[in-house]
């Protein structure tokens, strides 16, 4: 019955045409698409910068770029990938999927989210424009530590305003998500019936609202220190540059969970689908996510063990960091248990989800090593750290996004993508990402420092391997937009609602492609109950 009325609504949705559809977009799917396209563009810009880094590090000595530009590349690569690629991709997926998954016709605040999207092109134009100003782009690292960040010339205020805009955009995006989830759910969609992608995004949104303003405050203090004579971080005036690090990482550690929690949600949707079993321990997953989010507020100083702090503080931050392994372990265990005795099949979304499971866990283990204070004294600022956070961000967050896109793409466009090519994309990505990042563990343990354009000759071999992996990974990502384009233009139509036979959840009760407005008549209690794990 519900299906019938939705199909009827599909016939006369009033889609605006031409540029107005996008500039004035308030439809949750159009907004989601814009976010995802923007994120993809930024992914390739940030990726191109990574290619510059790997090319320079292919062999020892200085060949392609001067040290200033090299450090600009590392700084900009991080800012663009974090704030331009991963976070907008999650917001895009949230806008596309949350109304469909909770039985709502639209997001709660469509005009606000239009504004929050359109801030982004301006923010990143401003950030990228720093490449062309006197003094060059920011080169003091994405962490913006003073006093180094203050010595960068004309790019400094541009960097700060760009960060302000990105922050405002993501806060508004998060508010939209919370209001939608709390107020727009269909009757019968209780909190504990919500899909885990919705749950993880709800928790992510609270993290965003809590910590993005702290970052905004920290960079505002940098700005006033530089231009208005305040001395928050200036030792000469009684301030302390180490305090910036504390404030920054108070934001920074929750930020890494902002980047990864939605991936936990997506993987928790995909693994049951392709195991043809309900998710093992649904409720435990919800509580584990919430505990990770809570713990993320009390571990920040593990980024700063070497700057000096009392022994008691070092112990506290070490132990609280290690505590996070418990809820994370619960999740990894539950995903594995979901597959146990399931009838597995290995379509592209499942392949990416499985690679996520293996490789994110490796990144988690190196994170535990970094949490150990005396060991961290050795690892600090080496390639071991670089390897660690790339393992949790590339095969973690990025693979999570790709898994999500491959999972829902047939629902979005109504066509199936080229399965063989998508598997090529997966295998190339999965192999090259390890060739790229695994050797960096060795380099770091051997003492190669990060953010330096040159290195001692004994590091040459593994750097060459890593660079080859980098070029391979970068090139294979070009398959991704090609695949999506082919799917939209000439994919085989998916005639059924469930593109994947084992899929659970409300989005699979809608026709494919999904109608312009999702649930104009709320789904019935029976349909909701059928899709829920709990």
């Amino acid at each position, binding site marked *: 019955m519900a299906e019938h009325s939705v199909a009827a609504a599909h016939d006369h949705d009033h889609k605006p045409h031409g540029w107005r559809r996008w500039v004035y977009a308030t439809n949750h799917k159009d907004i989601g698409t814009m976010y995802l396209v923007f994120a993809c563009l930024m992914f390739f810009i940030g990726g191109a910068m990574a290619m510059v880094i790997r090319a320079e590090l292919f062999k020892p000595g200085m060949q392609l770029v001067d040290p200033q530009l090299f450090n600009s590349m590392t700084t900009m690569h991080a800012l663009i990938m974090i704030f331009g690629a991963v976070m907008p991709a999650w917001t895009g997926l949230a806008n596309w999927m949350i109304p469909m998954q909770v039985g709502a016709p639209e997001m*709660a*605040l469509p005009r*606000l989210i239009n504004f929050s999207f359109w801030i982004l092109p301006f923010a990143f134009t401003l950030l990228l424009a720093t490449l062309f100003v006197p003094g060059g782009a920011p080169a003091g690292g994405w962490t913006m530590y003073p*006093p180094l960040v203050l010595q960068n010339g004309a790019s400094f205020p541009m960097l700060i305003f760009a960060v302000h805009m990105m922050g405002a955009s993501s*806060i508004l995006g*998060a*508010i939209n998500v*919370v*209001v939608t989830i*709390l*107020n*727009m759910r269909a009757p019968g969609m209780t909190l504990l019936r919500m899909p885990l992608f919705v749950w993880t995004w709800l928790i992510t949104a609270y993290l965003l*609202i*809590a*910590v*993005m*303003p*702290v*970052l*905004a*405050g*920290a960079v505002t*203090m940098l700005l006033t220190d530089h231009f208005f*004579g305040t*001395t*928050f971080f*200036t*030792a*000469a*005036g*009684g301030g*302390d540059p*180490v*305090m910036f690090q*504390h*404030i920054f990482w*108070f934001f920074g550690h929750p930020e890494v969970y902002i980047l990864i929690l939605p991936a936990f949600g997506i993987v928790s949707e995909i693994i049951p689908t392709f195991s043809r079993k309900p998710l093992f321990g649904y409720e435990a997953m919800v509580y584990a996510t919430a505990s990770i989010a809570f713990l993320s507020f009390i571990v920040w100083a593990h980024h700063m063990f070497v700057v*000096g*702090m*009392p022994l*008691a*503080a070092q112990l506290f931050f070490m132990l609280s960091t290690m505590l996070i392994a418990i809820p994370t372990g619960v999740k990894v265990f539950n995903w594995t248990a979901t597959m146990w005795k399931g009838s597995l099949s290995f379509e592209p979304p499942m392949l990416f989800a499985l690679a996520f499971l293996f490789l994110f866990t490796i990144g988690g283990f190196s994170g535990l090593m970094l949490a150990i204070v005396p060991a961290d004294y050795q690892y600090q600022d080496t390639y071991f750290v670089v390897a660690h956070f790339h393992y949790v961000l590339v095969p973690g967050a990025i693979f999570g996004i790709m898994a999500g896109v491959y999972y829902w793409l047939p629902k979005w466009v109504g066509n199936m993508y080229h399965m063989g090519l998508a598997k090529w994309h997966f295998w190339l990505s999965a192999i090259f990402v390890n060739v790229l990042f695994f050797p960096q563990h060795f380099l770091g343990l051997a003492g190669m420092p990060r953010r330096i354009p040159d290195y001692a000759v004994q590091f040459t071999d593994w750097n060459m391997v890593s660079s080859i992996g980098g070029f391979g990974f970068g090139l294979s990502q070009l398959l991704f937009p090609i695949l999506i384009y082919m799917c939209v233009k000439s994919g085989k139509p998916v005639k059924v609602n469930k593109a994947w036979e084992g899929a659970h959840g409300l989005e699979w009760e809608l026709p494919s492609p999904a109608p312009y407005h999702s649930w104009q008549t709320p789904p019935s209690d029976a349909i909701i109950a059928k899709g829920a794990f709990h």
Partner: protein
Amino acid sequence: MTVLDRANRNLTLKLLGIALGSFGFGFALVPLYNVICGVTGVGDQSALLRRVKAIENPDPNRTITIEFLGNVASAGGWEFGPVARTVEIHPGKLYSAEFFAHNLTGRDMTAQAVPNIAPSKVAAYFHKTECFCFSPQHFKVNEQRNMPVRFIVDPAIPKYIDRITLAYTFYDASSQVSKR
């Protein structure tokens, strides 16, 4: 305005309020940080910048080596450093040392020296009766002079301490001073 619209608006305003609160919390971390540093004694600037009255009560049986270091915050422009690199002292006795500075910036300058002490625990036992770091130092173009620091180490200092490093960083404080 429907019931749902009103509920959405109220929740949006509440969440914006939380965001605003966290923005304020970022700034509240500044005084909080100083309080925590004070309680734990880390980088206790106030102890290092406090002028004290010395009561001499020398302990001739203990000798501690004091090392002096001078750094300049931004390269060039200043010559700055201790006149004598180390001195052996007895706790409880008043000593004085001198730092040398030479303004090569080509302008009249005001500089502020910021002290730092290692190991950081001894800050509470290292007292200065007089220090050039207590106030901004004015230098004419090319002026050079020696600046005194007088200090006394509390005999209650833990037994295992036999070496203390007193480091000063010399900052250009012209902009800060003009604002005060």
